[in-house]
């Protein structure tokens, strides 16, 4: 039997510990989606709780047409989106600074990746740059890179077209590389 189905059916019949197991299995994805959008620890935790309470309430409506993590991800995404709308916080910025491609072409081939990865200063700057991405790009990057979801799954969660997601990912990664190459240039 599909493990998602077994877990959902157990939770629906109020089997002891089933819903708690469901939360534990999917809280990571939910947390990543919400925290990356909201970027506020306490609010993100409240929204995560709200997400799972909604999951509990509407679990009987889950039809197994998509994976359970995608379904929960959709709910988490919509809960976070509503939070941003309520607070009138932008999900994407209008004036995204795009670095000219020529700027990032001037770093040599002989970069020692491991040495750079050990350089906490560069990593710290890279983390800052990731944190400064607009919420939507930050979330898409997390879903694609950290959670390892496919563009199709990210599309199911966010409701964005695959091409749009690809474009956002491309731009975010390109922008971050530009920042990183500037840093590497300074450190070389």
């Amino acid at each position: 039997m599909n493990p998602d189905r077994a877990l959902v059916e157990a939770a629906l019949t109020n089997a002891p510990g089933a819903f708690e197991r469901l939360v534990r299995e999917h809280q990571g994805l939910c947390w990543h989606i919400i925290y990356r959008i909201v970027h506020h620890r306490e609010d993100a935790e409240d929204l995560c709780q709200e997400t799972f309470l909604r999951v509990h309430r509407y679990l009987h409506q889950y039809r197994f047409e998509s994976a359970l993590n995608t379904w929960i991800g959709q709910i988490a995404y919509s809960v976070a989106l509503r939070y941003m709308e309520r607070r009138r916080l932008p999900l994407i910025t209008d004036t995204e600074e795009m670095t000219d491609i020529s700027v990032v072409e001037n770093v040599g081939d002989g970069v020692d990746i491991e040495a750079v990865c050990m350089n906490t200063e560069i990593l710290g700057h890279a983390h800052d740059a990731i944190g400064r991405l607009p919420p939507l790009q930050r979330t898409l990057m997390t879903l694609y890179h950290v959670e390892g979801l496919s563009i199709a799954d990210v599309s199911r969660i966010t409701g964005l077209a695959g091409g749009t997601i690809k474009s956002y990912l491309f731009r975010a990664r390109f922008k971050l590389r530009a920042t990183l190459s500037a840093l590497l240039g300074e450190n070389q």
Partner: protein
Amino acid sequence: MNVDEREWDDQESALESLRSGNPIANEARINQYKILFAALAGQPIPALSQGFASRVALIAYLRSDKARKIERRFEYGLTAMMLAVLALAASLVSICFGTAWLRPLLSANPWLKASLLCVAALSIVVHIQREGNKPVIQA
């Protein structure tokens, strides 16, 4: 900004190389992406508080219909018990002191009699309503 397919392929190659551990051509651009993706994977993110899952499961249970039914049943039981105690106390008072004390009180204040009648009528109506709301079990 349109997606530059060559750049996109480099991004994907870097990601694939990082995930699989397979080395790829030592090109500056791909290396930079690898550093970037490694940084992204290792980016610290605050953790959910301890016991989050069990706390949420408990709240979900308390908000569930089953818990509400149990709570309602407990409330009814408690009310019934208090009424029973009240009735018992009234009976004991009547046995000990008779009902002579009640008659002058009721005749002196007709509103008290009317209020008691209203309370009695209301409780009958509530009882009938509750009986009517019970689900019909079909064979």
